[in-house]
C-alpha cells in the first residue's frame, strides 16, 4: 500500500531528474507537463483510496511507527495533494509559453518539480522532523526559482525571502528539539497522546508558540509576513503563481495539522492568539493591497489577507469553522494561482503589471477581462462563486461562536477586497492604455495563446464548478474537519490498534 502514498512524491522527483538532463532541448518542458499530469493522476488515486478506506498510512522502509518515518494521508492531506496536482499541472502548461529558454537551461523545470515534490512531501508526512526536511526541500527549490535569471529586483526580493524563511526554519528546528526532549517522540500520531503526559504543560505552550511563529512565517501571517510582498512580484509569472497558490498554504496546512493534532492542551490560550493573528492578518493584508499600484503587488498583499480567513477557521476551532478553513484553503489555491496567471497574460499583451502603465484590456481583450472577473469576484466573495461559500461558512461559524467582532472584520475585509479588485479592473481593463497601445490576445503567437489561456480557463471553470455545486465540496470539507477534530482514526492508522504495530 505504500506506493500510493509515495507516488505523488516520487513522480515529481523522477521528473525533476529527467527534466534536468533534457534542460537544453524542448523535451524538458514537456517532461515537466507529463510529470505534473502523472502526479495529478497519482494524487487522484490516493484521494479515491482515502475516500474509500479512511486514513491511509504507510511505514517507509518497513520500520514500525513511531520509530520509522510514516507517510499518512487523511482527507485534508489528500485534498491538498490533489489541489497541488491541479495547480501544478496548470502552471506547468502555462510555463510552456512563459519561461524563456535561458531560464529553462538554468534548470527551471527541474527546480519546479522538486518544489512540487517538497510540497507533497510536507502534506503527506506523519513525522515532525520529516516535515522539517520537506520544508527544506521546498525552500531550497523556491530559493532557486525565485532568483533564477538573476535580475536585480529578483535578487533584492530574494534576500528578504531567504533570510526570513531561514529564521523560521531555525525556530522550527529548535521547537522540534525541545518537543522531542519533552515527549521522546516525533511521530505526529504518537505526539497526540504523548503531549498529554508532559509534566509541565506550561513548557508545552512555549513550544506551541515556537511552532506558531515558525509556521506563521511560512504562512505569512501578521506580523511575520513582510517577506511575501517583498518578493512574490519579482520572479517569472509562473513562479509567482505557484508560490502564491501553494507555498503559504503549506504553512497554513502545518498550522492546522499541529494545532488540531498536537497542541490542543491549552486551547483557550493558543487559539486566542491565533484569533487575534487572524484578525490583524486580514486587515493589514487588505490595507496593504489598497495602497499598492501594481497588479502583482496588490495580489501579493491579498494572499496575506486571505491567509487570515484560514487562520480564523482554525482559531475558532469549532467543527463548522474547520469546514470553512478547509474549504477556503482549497478555493484560495485555485483562485490565487489563477489571478497571477491572468496578471501574466496582461503583462504580455499590455506591456507591464504596473497599473498606471497599462489599460484598455476590456475593450480589446474582453475574453481576458471575463477570465479575470471570475477569480477576482470569487476572491472577494461574490455569489455564486467558490469564495462566497468559503466566506459564508466562516462568517457563520464566527457568529455561531459569538465572535461578532471578528465576523464583522471578515465582512469588512471582503468589502475592501472588492475595492482593490475594482482598482485593478478600472486601471488595467477600463481605462484607455496610456501609451495608446491596443492590447489584444491575437497579438500572442497561437501556440503561446493556447498554453497561456487553457490553464486560466480550466482553473476559472473549477472555481465556477465549486461555486455552483458547493454541496459535495462542503460535505467533503465536513468529513475532513471531523477527522481533524477526532484524530483517533488518524492515530490508529499510523500506530495500529492500541498503539502497537
Amino acid at each position, binding site marked *: 500500500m505504500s506506493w500510493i502514498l509515495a507516488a505523488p512524491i516520487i513522480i515529481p522527483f523522477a521528473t525533476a531528474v529527467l527534466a534536468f538532463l533534457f534542460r537544453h532541448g524542448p523535451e524538458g518542458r514537456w517532461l515537466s507537463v507529463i510529470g505534473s499530469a502523472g502526479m495529478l493522476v497519482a494524487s487522484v488515486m490516493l484521494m479515491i483510496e482515502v475516500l474509500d478506506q479512511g486514513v491511509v498510512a504507510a511505514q517507509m522502509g518497513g520500520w514500525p511507527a513511531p520509530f520509522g518515518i510514516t507517510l499518512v494521508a487523511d482527507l485534508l492531506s489528500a485534498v491538498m495533494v490533489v489541489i497541488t496536482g491541479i495547480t501544478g499541472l496548470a502552471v506547468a502548461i502555462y510555463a510552456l509559453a512563459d519561461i524563456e529558454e535561458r531560464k529553462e537551461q538554468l534548470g527551471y523545470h527541474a527546480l519546479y518539480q522538486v518544489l512540487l515534490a517538497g510540497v507533497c512531501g510536507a502534506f503527506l508526512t506523519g513525522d515532525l*522532523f520529516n516535515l*522539517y*526536511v520537506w520544508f*527544506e526541500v521546498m*525552500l*531550497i527549490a523556491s*530559493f532557486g526559482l525565485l*532568483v533564477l*535569471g*538573476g*535580475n*536585480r*529586483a*529578483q*535578487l*533584492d*526580493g*530574494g*534576500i*528578504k525571502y*531567504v*533570510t526570513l524563511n*531561514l*529564521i523560521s*526554519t*531555525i525556530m522550527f*528546528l*529548535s521547537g*522540534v*528539539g*525541545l518537543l*522531542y*526532549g519533552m515527549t*521522546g517522540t516525533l511521530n505526529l500520531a504518537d505526539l497526540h497522546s504523548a503531549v498529554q503526559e508532559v509534566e509541565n504543560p506550561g513548557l508545552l505552550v512555549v513550544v506551541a508558540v515556537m511552532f506558531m511563529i515558525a509556521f506563521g512565517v511560512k504562512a505569512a501571517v501578521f506580523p511575520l509576513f513582510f517577506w511575501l*510582498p*517583498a*518578493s512574490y*512580484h*519579482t520572479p517569472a509569472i509562473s513562479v509567482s503563481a505557484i508560490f502564491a497558490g501553494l507555498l503559504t498554504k503549506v504553512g497554513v496546512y502545518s498550522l492546522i495539522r499541529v494545532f488540531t493534532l498536537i497542541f490542543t492542551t491549552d486551547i483557550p490560550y493558543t487559539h486566542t492568539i491565533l484569533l487575534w493573528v487572524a484578525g490583524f492578518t486580514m486587515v493589514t493584508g487588505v490595507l496593504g493591497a489598497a*495602497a499598492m*499600484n*501594481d497588479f502583482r503587488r496588490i495580489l501579493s498583499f491579498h494572499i496575506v489577507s486571505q491567509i487570515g480567513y484560514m487562520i480564523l477557521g482554525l482559531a475558532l476551532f469549532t467543527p463548522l469553522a474547520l469546514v470553512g478553513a478547509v474549504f477556503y484553503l482549497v478555493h484560495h489555491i485555485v483562485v490565487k494561482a489563477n489571478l497571477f496567471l491572468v496578471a501574466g497574460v496582461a503583462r504580455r499583451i499590455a506591456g*507591464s503589471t*504596473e497599473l*498606471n*502603465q497599462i489599460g484598455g484590456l476590456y475593450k480589446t481583450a474582453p475574453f481576458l477581462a471575463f477570465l479575470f472577473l471570475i477569480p477576482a469576484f470569487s476572491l472577494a466573495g461574490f455569489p455564486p462563486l467558490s469564495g462566497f461559500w468559503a466566506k459564508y461558512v466562516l462568517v457563520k461559524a464566527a457568529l455561531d461562536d459569538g465572535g461578532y467582532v471578528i465576523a464583522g472584520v471578515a465582512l469588512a475585509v471582503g468589502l475592501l477586497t472588492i475595492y482593490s479588485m475594482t482598482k485593478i479592473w478600472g486601471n488595467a481593463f477600463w481605462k484607455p492604455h496610456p501609451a495608446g497601445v491596443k492590447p489584444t490576445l491575437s497579438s500572442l503567437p497561437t501556440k503561446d495563446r493556447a498554453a497561456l489561456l487553457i490553464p486560466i480557463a480550466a482553473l476559472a471553470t473549477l472555481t465556477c464548478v465549486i461555486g455552483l455545486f458547493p454541496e459535495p465540496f462542503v460535505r467533503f470539507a465536513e468529513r475532513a474537519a471531523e477527522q481533524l477534530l477526532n484524530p483517533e482514526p488518524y492515530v490508529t492508522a499510523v500506530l495500529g490498534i492500541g498503539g502497537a504495530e
Partner: protein
Amino acid sequence: MELLVALMVGVLVAASVHLMLARNVLRFLFGMILISNAANLTIFVSGRLTAEEPPLIPYGADVTVVGAANALPQALVLTAIVIGFGLFAFALTLVYRAYQNLGTLNSDEMRLAEPEPATKSEPSKTYIAKDTTP
C-alpha cells in the same frame, strides 16, 4: 553539563541577535550561522548529555546501557547540520551576487523590489529592472 550547554545556547542566541540586527546583510548571515548552531545544540541537549557513556549497544546485549545518551537527536543534528550548511552556502552566494549587482550590502538601500512610496505617483522606471548580468 546540561546547564553549561544551555548557557552556551543563550550566549550564541544573544550574539546572533546582535549580529542580525545589523543593517549589513553579511553580518546578518553570520548571525544566522550562530543561531542555527544554537538550534543544533538545543536538539543535542534534548537527547541527554552523558560524558563517558556512548550510545552504543554492548556486545551480546540488545539495548544500550541504562543512562546512555539517546542517539536519535544526534542523528537529527547531523541532518540539520547538513541541510543548514547547504542553505547557508546558497544564502552566501545570493548575498555575494546581490552585492555585485546592487552594489550594496546595506539592507536599508535594498529598495529595488519595493520602491519608496514617493515614486509611486509617477510611472516607476526601476520596476522591470533591466538585467545587467552578462
